[in-house]
């Protein structure tokens, strides 16, 4: 059984249909990439999965349970964390407080401090700046904070929306290395990216979205050699 299953979801913004009935699945331990151009419906799909939007039709199943109608604030405690597009760290809170917000649903304080130590291990930069306001961090640091914050809930699956957006090439490489590490440490990853080349290089499988439909899917390595993908997304 797949860990996360999206079945025929249709999502509307008012009268406009953004997602036209897509289905895909994410198995435990996989890194799945959702690629596509601007406006293809990638973010809408993620928002539907984590409950920020609700589909008009279709189902979202997580570990065999229907979570289509579960509100966003109850999704985290099920084991799904969402790193939103544009990072959306709490600018007026310190780095440490932001991380604590990530563990909002967890009760055990001792365990929380342990997880913070783990996050600082993975992102030493955050430890250096733990008492700084998140709004004063650079873009790359904010992305690390957003990822660290999501890891604070000890998710089974982490959903990331455009983690490389607006970052320099060096930072993009760094962010993708971290995603690979997160995956190796046992967290399933669902990744939405415009940087298709990078996304496909670390993904197991990928789905290609175009104007609300999945037009192509399969093994990431195979997709990388696909001519239409090369032309449309890899700039070759």
């Amino acid at each position: 059984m797949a860990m996360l299953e999206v079945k025929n979801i249709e999502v509307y913004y008012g009268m406009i249909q953004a997602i036209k009935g897509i289905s895909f699945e994410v198995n435990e331990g996989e890194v799945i990439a959702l690629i596509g151009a601007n406006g293809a419906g990638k973010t809408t799909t993620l928002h539907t999965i984590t409950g920020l939007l609700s589909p008009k039709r279709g189902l979202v199943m997580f570990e065999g349970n229907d979570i289509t109608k579960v509100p966003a604030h109850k999704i985290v405690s099920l084991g799904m964390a969402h790193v939103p597009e544009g990072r959306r760290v709490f600018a007026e809170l310190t780095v440490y407080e932001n991380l604590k917000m990530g563990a909002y649903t967890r009760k055990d304080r001792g365990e929380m401090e342990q997880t913070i130590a783990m996050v600082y291990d993975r992102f030493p930069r955050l430890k250096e700046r733990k008492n700084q306001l998140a709004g004063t961090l650079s873009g790359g640091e904010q992305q690390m904070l957003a990822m660290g914050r999501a890891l604070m809930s000890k998710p089974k699956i982490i959903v990331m929306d455009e983690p490389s957006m607006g970052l320099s090439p060096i930072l993009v490489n760094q962010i993708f290395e971290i995603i690979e590490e997160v995956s190796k440490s046992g967290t399933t990853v669902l990744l939405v990216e415009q940087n298709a080349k990078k996304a496909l290089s670390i993904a197991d499988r990928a789905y290609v979205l175009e104007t609300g439909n999945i037009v192509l899917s399969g093994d990431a390595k195979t997709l990388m050699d696909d001519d239409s993908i090369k032309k449309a997304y890899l700039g070759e």
Partner: protein
Amino acid sequence: MSFISYLINGVSLGSVYAIIALGYTMVYGIAKMLNFAHGDVIMIGAYVVMAAISGAGLPPGVAVLLSIVCCLILGIVIESVAYRPLLNAASSLAVLITAIGVSYLLQNVALLIFGANTISFDSVVSVPAVTLMDGALTITGEAIVTIVSCIVIMIALTLFISRTKSGQAMRAVSEDKGAAQLMGIHVNGTIALTFAIGSALAAIAGVLLCSSYPSLNPYTGAMPGIKAFVAAVFGGIGSIPGAFIGGILLGVIEIFGKAYISSQMADAIVFGVLIVILLVKPAGILGKNVQEKV
């Protein structure tokens, strides 16, 4: 000596404004709306105390607690019935107009129940007045209790916001509701909590105000409510220390205006100050000029 006595009166009145302004500023900070019915909750709070003492014969302390609980519930009901359905409305004017409507509703309900006559409110404060400097300066018990209450509330609220989990959730919600939801924070619950705290504070403000200025009618809350709103804008709306500073300054300006310039002109002076502040520093004394980072 009269200068010091005016100053103390001003700080005392300002403390009441500050406590009311907290309700405005917290609700604005979190729900991004102006709750213009906030002033009328003060009046309801004062009526509950009066009814509990003279009607039911309860001791003042119990009456004040009862009033706090009533206003707290009233705040939650107002939020969930009148405002929550409109928070995502296309125009933010919808909720503003509704708030004005709720304000009139509360005034008219009070008119129906308690009548239009101004009644005299018996002070609930039993602290004796303090006489200093051989009788040259007298500080009323009401002034002492009001100022102390304001300071205690400020400290408690600041600790609550910075130290507790719910307080941090409030700060997160005030910044980014969507991201807060992704953290597992129940946004509507947090907004309701904010209304509850603001309204409970309004009850306290109502009791303190009517203890110092002992007359009560269904419109008693309207003017202090508006002035506290001015105080909140003055200090920087959304900022808790701003509400404190704005409230105290406004109270002092009002009392000095009454004492040294003209008692008829006092309100005009208060609102004149608002205009000047908005011209010079639109975000208020402690307000932030929000800049989007791209």
